[in-house]
């Protein structure tokens, strides 16, 4: 299979403009003859549904939550990047592009990333017009801050709730279209399969999560805006219902899944406190601006942290990276926390955490100044951990936060299946092997408001308006039967272990072996363990309740089944990529000082996997899209 990125030719700055000029258009009177299904109502899905309905398409919107407003985009804290250059500090679209492609460790497409940087400015305009309450200066104009180690201040924010405010903007735009009849809105519906007729995506099968009824929906195009797959780790900062099911079922129908091993682990999360733990909570990265990270030098030192004198504290980031210190990028900070804990220096009841200490900044600036900056975060920490960070160091540990991998898409955000599109975190497109802070919101909204509504027209222009096969077409019947069979199978196993038990066990295998650092031996072992556990899942899982009723455990069972297959693919992908890049650290490919070594010669490609079946083991064929760099020079990252 040849993967064509369809990236337009010409100078970087001209590509998107040129493409927009050359794309086919659908006439206004024809737009209403097209049906478009959008699955997911986060930033990418909500914005796309609203914008396409405004254009005149008939949109059907689906989400698993009880309201579109609850999609997981809502939990994003930090902010959204755009190169408005309001602070006059030398920012530009080029610089935002360059930072993003470098931050992704040169594993993304130049054309896509440049477009993202270009479109970002329009997102800010749109959000402000909707009434998104971004932070402002006393003069009434928008405020910016520097975020995630960027050298310019380009991040727009709404306190620590930027995701919530942007999502509500998109949700409200969406509800306006529901009111005007442009969107048919279906909350509490889960997509269980995509329907393909004559090689084109023509509809989906959903389960009504209240009645349990399976339903068939026909359309001219299907958009998956269904988020990332971080919950394969069981514990992550993702919302509990976030899952890979829509993307994975599309993958099983032929859509390629790209770079599944690229997973971002955020360094500052509240550590696990026990087996009952259901999720992990992120603490904003900004804490590392003033907090100092350390562990005791001596193994098993069980003194209270305040009783350990400075010379017996190991400020490992400051010692190893004198120029960046505690502000090294996310991947470096996460990896080093794991290293010290693996050496037995970790603290807390489980030994799986490190200190983040504010003693010195409180002494220097006073408690009040510190409270003004971080008060809400300190309160949140105390509420969850039960310890007062003004009086003793916080304990933190890395947690899975974002997945850069996802469905393979071309420049038009279309998968290799004509008519099937993927946007936001569900696709693989813009962040390469590592995502920079404040870039997820930017990508979701760029895809949703501006890119997809333009590129989908180019596809639909070639689809005869009003083409209908009818939902009694065999492809619909078969797809529904497949979904029904799986539900029946899960309910009939009647085994001894709960779904949560399986998911937690799977998550531990994935975290231990496909987490912060990977190596060949562990990855091979993980593949075996995943296969064995998957086998047991299908013979020994207990799924309570009925199918024709509200049944959250049945929903979870189907999602965990998909995680079991995805996990194996992640391990395969990580095994295949014999280099270290971005968040993917292969222990065999690092320098003596423990720095990542990238191999551009052999691995400067997107790994796009084609599903071939599961039979004890997962069968997948690797396809490669080579990444060409015309405009930037590839460099090794160093933070020493």
């Amino acid at each position, binding site marked *: 299979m040849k993967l064509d990125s369809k990236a337009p030719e010409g100078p970087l700055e001209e590509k998107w403009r040129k493409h927009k000029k050359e794309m086919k258009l659908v006439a206004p009177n024809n737009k209403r003859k097209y049906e478009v299904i959008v699955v997911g109502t986060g930033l990418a899905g909500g914005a796309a549904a609203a914008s396409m309905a405004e254009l005149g398409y008939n949109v059907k919107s689906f989400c698993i939550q009880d309201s579109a407003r609850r999609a997981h985009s809502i939990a994003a804290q930090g902010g959204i990047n755009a190169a408005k250059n309001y602070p006059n500090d030398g920012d530009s679209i080029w610089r935002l592009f360059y930072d993003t492609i470098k931050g992704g460790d040169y594993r993304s497409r130049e054309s896509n990333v440049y477009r993202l940087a270009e479109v970002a400015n*329009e997102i800010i305009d749109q*959000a402000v017009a*909707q009434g998104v309450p971004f932070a*402002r200066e006393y003069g009434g*104009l928008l405020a910016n801050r520097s975020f995630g180690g960027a050298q310019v201040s380009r991040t727009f924010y709404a306190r620590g709730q930027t995701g919530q405010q942007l999502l509500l903007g998109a*949700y409200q735009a969406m509800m306006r279209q529901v009111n005007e009849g442009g969107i048919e809105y279906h909350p509490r519906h889960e997509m269980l399969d995509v329907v393909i007729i004559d090689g084109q995506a023509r509809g989906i099968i959903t389960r009504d999560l209240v009645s349990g009824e399976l339903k068939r929906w026909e359309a001219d195009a299907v958009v998956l805006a269904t988020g990332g797959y971080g919950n394969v780790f069981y514990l992550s900062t993702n919302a509990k219902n976030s899952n890979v099911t829509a993307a994975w079922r599309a993958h099983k129908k032929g859509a390629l899944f790209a770079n599944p091993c690229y997973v971002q682990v955020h360094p500052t999360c509240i550590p696990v406190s026990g087996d009952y733990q*259901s999720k992990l909570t992120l603490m904003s990265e900004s804490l590392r601006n003033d907090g100092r990270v350390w562990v005791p030098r001596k193994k098993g030192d069980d003194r209270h942290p305040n009783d350990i004198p400075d010379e017996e504290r190991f400020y490992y980031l400051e010692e190893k990276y004198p120029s960046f210190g505690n502000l090294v990028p996310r991947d470096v900070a996460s990896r080093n926390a794991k290293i010290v804990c693996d050496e037995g220096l970790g603290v807390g009841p489980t030994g799986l955490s490190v200190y983040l200490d504010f003693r010195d900044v409180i002494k220097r600036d006073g408690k009040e100044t510190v409270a003004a900056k971080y008060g809400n975060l300190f309160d949140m920490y105390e509420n969850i951990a039960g310890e007062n960070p003004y009086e003793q160091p916080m304990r933190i540990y890395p947690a899975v936060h974002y997945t850069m991998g996802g469905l393979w898409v071309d420049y038009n955000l279309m998968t290799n299946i004509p008519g099937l599109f993927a946007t936001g975190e569900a696709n693989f497109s813009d962040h390469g092997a590592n995502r920079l802070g404040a870039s997820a919101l930017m990508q979701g909204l760029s895809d949703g408001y501006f890119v997809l509504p333009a590129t989908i027209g180019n596809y639909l222009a070639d689809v005869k308006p009003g083409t209908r096969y009818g939902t009694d077409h065999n492809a619909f019947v078969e797809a529904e039967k497949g979904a029904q069979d799986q539900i029946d199978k899960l309910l009939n196993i009647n085994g001894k272990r709960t779904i949560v038990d399986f998911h937690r066990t799977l998550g531990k295998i994935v975290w231990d072996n496909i987490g912060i650092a990977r190596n060949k031996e562990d990855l091979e072992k993980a593949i075996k363990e995943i296969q064995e556990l998957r086998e047991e899942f299908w013979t020994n899982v207990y799924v309570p309740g009925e199918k024709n009723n509200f049944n959250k455990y049945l929903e979870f069972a189907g999602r965990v089944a998909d995680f079991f297959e995805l996990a194996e693919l992640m391990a395969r992908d990580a095994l295949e990529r014999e280099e270290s890049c971005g968040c993917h650290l292969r222990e065999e490919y690092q320098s003596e000082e423990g720095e990542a070594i990238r191999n551009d010669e052999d691995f400067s490609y997107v790994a796009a996997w084609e599903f071939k079946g599961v039979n004890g083991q997962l069968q997948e064929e690797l396809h490669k899209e080579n990444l060409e760099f015309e405009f930037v020079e590839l460099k090794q990252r160093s933070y020493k």
Partner: protein
Amino acid sequence: MSKDMTIHLKYWKQSGPDVPGHFEEYTLDTVNEHMSFLEMLDVLNEELQLKGKEPVEFDYDCREGICGSCNLVINGQAHGPKAEVACCQLHMRNYKDGDKITIEPPRAAAFPIIKDLVVDRSAFDRIIEVGGYVSVKTGSAQEANALPVEKEKSDEAFEYAACIGCGACVAACPNASASLFTGAKLAHLNKFPQGEVERSNRAVAMVDQMKEEGFGDCSNFAECEAVCPKGISISAIAEMRRDYIKALVN
């Protein structure tokens, strides 16, 4: 490490909207002070399943207090005993060994029960649908800094915009009114010049829809403000009423 606590639970079970419900009881012996309230319910459900019993259904998603999915009424209080904390962020250290805890769904005519502790809050969507937005199409926005907005106003707008749509305000109100929810959205949008244009129409449409959905009127009990996990002020309701009356007489 802390010792495990014993907690006596009494929770609502109801298999569907049109059948009568009842309380069930269960005693958990392994509750840890670090667990969140919802993690305690996860443990309950694991135990129930291992004993071949049906788990209790409840809504949740982010478990960080921001998505607004969870909305349990705990010992008669929406979101439980801690001020400005959604029940997903309530931790068991707020309880002691031997405590009895009763868990109910938020009860309101406009929030029919789907199952157990899960209710249908789609009425909130419909209130937003009729006017909870600025009518601006994608692409038609002006430059973001073209319209300055006083910092104080913008900050105040944020306070109202922080609503997570959980419905605790409705659960706590003796009239099951959605005035705080509706008022908060109006107050948020009205603070901006962009929102000012549709101010009157928005107030009328949203307030009328609120009545249509079967929510009660506001009688100034202020219970909503007391339970709101985001601490939203009832001054939003006063503003909503002024705007509504003004719109009707104009």
